[in-house]
């Protein structure tokens, strides 16, 4: 922890970065995001098991972007999100300093984004264990049971779009659901429209989701929608052998073609 604070302070003092994004102690014993410009305030930074939010979501926000060079406290999912954002030209590689956090919570000092890539390449990637257990249970169901499960869950959704706001990959200026010329997805919350919205969100994140689970945590109704994108992440990996957020190159599963791509989904 001291290493993290020390490094953040150094970066701000030497003016190598203009802003540090990290976690601090919030109210009610929770951790929350903090944005530090003053090197003296880097003492606020913490990292422990309460720090679950994917901070990469802030990188593409207008209010943050204009700071220029940013250092960000980054456990694995944040690192992977940053790589996706770089590959999709949303943040500039040279503007980001990664204050890495290892799986054991230790501070990792990365000199460059290439080192981050290398670090990620050595770690087994996949969905978090507890989520994968539920996904496996769902996959073991019959299609009818699964449809019923999701219909019951999604019926409750009232389209607050918190899931969208929490996701670092949902950065479009105008989301498809806001498109009204023509209106592809109906705006009010009703079972069919809800299903359409969540299917669309899942498809748009296929091959791009880094399985951070923030969409599910953001949901005020506790609908486990993160399972949808996580399942797709696995699906994309099994089909095309690519995991999102492992490289700065644009090689997302659905936007690249390789002659040896499986075509078993074509009926």
């Amino acid at each position, binding site marked *: 922890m001291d290493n993290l604070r020390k490094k953040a302070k150094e970066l701000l003092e030497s003016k190598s970065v203009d802003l540090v994004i990290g976690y601090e102690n919030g109210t009610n014993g929770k951790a929350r995001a903090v944005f530090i410009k003053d090197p003296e305030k880097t003492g606020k930074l913490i990292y422990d098991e309460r720090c679950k939010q994917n901070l990469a979501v802030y990188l593409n926000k207008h209010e943050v972007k204009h700071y220029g060079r940013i250092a960000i406290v980054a456990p694995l999912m944040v690192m992977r999100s940053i790589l996706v954002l770089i590959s999709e*030209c949303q943040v500039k590689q040279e503007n980001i300093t990664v204050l890495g956090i290892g799986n054991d919570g230790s501070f990792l000092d990365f000199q460059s984004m290439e080192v981050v890539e290398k670090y990620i390449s050595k770690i087994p990637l996949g969905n978090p264990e507890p989520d994968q257990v539920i996904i496996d249970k769902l996959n073991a169901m019959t299609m009818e049971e699964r449809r019923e499960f999701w219909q019951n869950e999604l019926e409750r959704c009232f389209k607050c779009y918190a899931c969208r706001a929490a996701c670092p990959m949902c950065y*479009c200026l105008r989301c498809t659901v806001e498109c009204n010329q023509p209106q592809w997805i109906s705006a009010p919350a009703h079972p069919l429209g809800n299903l359409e919205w969540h299917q669309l969100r899942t498809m*748009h994140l296929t091959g791009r989701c880094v399985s951070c689970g923030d969409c599910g945590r953001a949901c005020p109704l506790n609908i486990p929608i993160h399972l949808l994108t996580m399942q797709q992440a696995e699906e994309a990996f099994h089909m095309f052998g690519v995991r999102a957020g492992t490289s700065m190159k*644009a090689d*997302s599963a659905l936007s690249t073609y390789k002659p040896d791509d499986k075509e078993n989904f074509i009926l």
Partner: protein
Amino acid sequence: MSRIGVFVCHCGENISATVDVAKVADDASRLPGVVHSVDYKYMCSDPGQTLVKDAIKEHNLTGVVVAACSPRMHEPTFRKACATAGLNPYLSEMANVREHCSWVHDKSEQTTQKAFDVVRAMISKVSNNGALEPIKVPVTKRALVVGGGVAGIQAALDIANCGHQVVLVERSPSIGGHMAQLSETFPTLDCSQCILTPRMVEVAQHPNITLYTYSEIESVDGFIGNFKVKIRKKARNLDEELCTGCGLCTTKCPQKKIPSEFEQGLGFRPAIYTPFPQAVPNKPIIDHDNCTYYKSGKCKICEIVCPTKAIRFEQEDTILDIEIGAIVLATGFDIKRSDFFPEYGKGKYKDVIDGLQFERLASASGPTQGMIRRPSDGQIPKKIVFIACAGSRDPAKGIEYCSKICCMYTAKHAMLYKHKVHDGEAHVFYMDIRAGGKMYEEFVRRAIVEDHVNYTRGRVSTIYELDGKLIVKGADTLLGAQAVEIEADMVVLATAGIANEGSEELAQKMHVSYDQHKFFAEAHPKLKPVETNTGGIFLAGACQTTRDIPDSVSMASGAAVKVAALFSSDLLTREPIVARVNRIPGPSHSTCVGCFLCQPVCPYQAIEREEIKDRAGNVIKSLARINEGLCQGCGTCVALCRSKSIDLLGYTDNQMHSEVLSVLEEAFV
């Protein structure tokens, strides 16, 4: 409010026999926005088109729906008619009530209802259509011909004689292709090389033709009229300016026992070689795999003996960048070799040979100077069995098609053999004799009647070797499948013609489609046999399917005319059906967020990066821009774009949405 005219065609009886066209026209007239609706016997005929033109003027139409055949058939016809009447051609739409309705359903009320639904959908679409203007792009008046066989040679000469520049690329060291290997040609038995080599020389000497042999296509970018082609000119290890083609190096090369590709392995060549004496260009190449110098670092005899000091061991491949307006693919074919047939010895019997090998044996310039001799011991065979359809028309071998040329060349082979070995016996096993062509049937008859070639209708089940003889076991199906056994000295297999090696790769580089046998696919089997689905790329010869010399030559001339037509004007007019990234006022400028995931999905490399700058020159935003010249309107980017920032003109989201909704309307009621 739109003013739409609906024109329902009977197509003779093609549509009216199953669809109540009058009812469709009548029901359509009651739809909102429709001000005029009629039916007519032949809408595409002159009076039919006049109906459309007059209605546009009379009713001041803002949109036209023609309910008739597929848009592939007559969309251009009616667009032209609209344009003549002063309506933007892209405000007309075809409702396909023939292929999608009358041809696939029986006569019933439901069929009429479906026709009406299709018409209604197109009315909804056309009310959202906007006027579009054709796109004009400049044309580079230089053609690329890939492949220097007889088709490529003919295409290159024809285009060059029209006064256009031609770049002819051939991957082997000489042009000539398979035709240069043949002995005589059917049905006239004139010498193949004697008629081909003058053409080869003409190519080399033509002022409008640039010839690159021993070269391959590295990459192709761009689009019709504006291709950018990279050609890899492989190192001949020779200064081509200095080399006089004297051939001294080839005679002095210590490596002499390398099987010659040109002689189909029946003769030998040195490591520095020209494939055959009449090769164009008549300059040798060094075969690195077999050259003593490249293997051991010593030798260089060719360099020592060369009178002009032209050998360059250190020479490397060069990459040439050439701008091209049109491409003719004439990459030819190959044949299955005898090792493809386990029942015929899987290539282990030396005296079971394929058709091309027989051509070399019969050729006056071949390894035996035209004497028919067995490859195993050089004896003159007294009995030869020719097996037609070896591999062809055999679904079990994965080749369902007829290779087309084998019936004729088998008759020719048998005839040539009889002419050379008077006391020899020639037996032909065939499935059917397919001799469609001028003087072809007469030719086969001549082989049977005058030259006494024994034709047996049946297939050969097995061949095995016994005491220096080949035992051929077959059946005579005209005698009730009676077993036939022939002790032959030599067997010639008329093996199946197949797509040339590397055709799949080349097709992918060219973005040209190909069939399941890797032959290049034509744009339409009847009406566009030399075009491909990619604009500006044409086909000639056996790369599309195996074909004989006259067919290849005429196809090449056909492709050449297509190229010449393309080059006849300075500007090309293209359909304005292209994708476009939306633009909105600042500060957003576009709903495009510049993720550029559309860039890799575009098969035509049409998506570019556009930077929006403020007055000080700082980049405010990067967004995708579509190059109208490159875009082919496939719509892949439209489907990929998450924020729906790309629209395909002529098929905008609004148009498609209203079309789909109007079809669903009935379902929701």
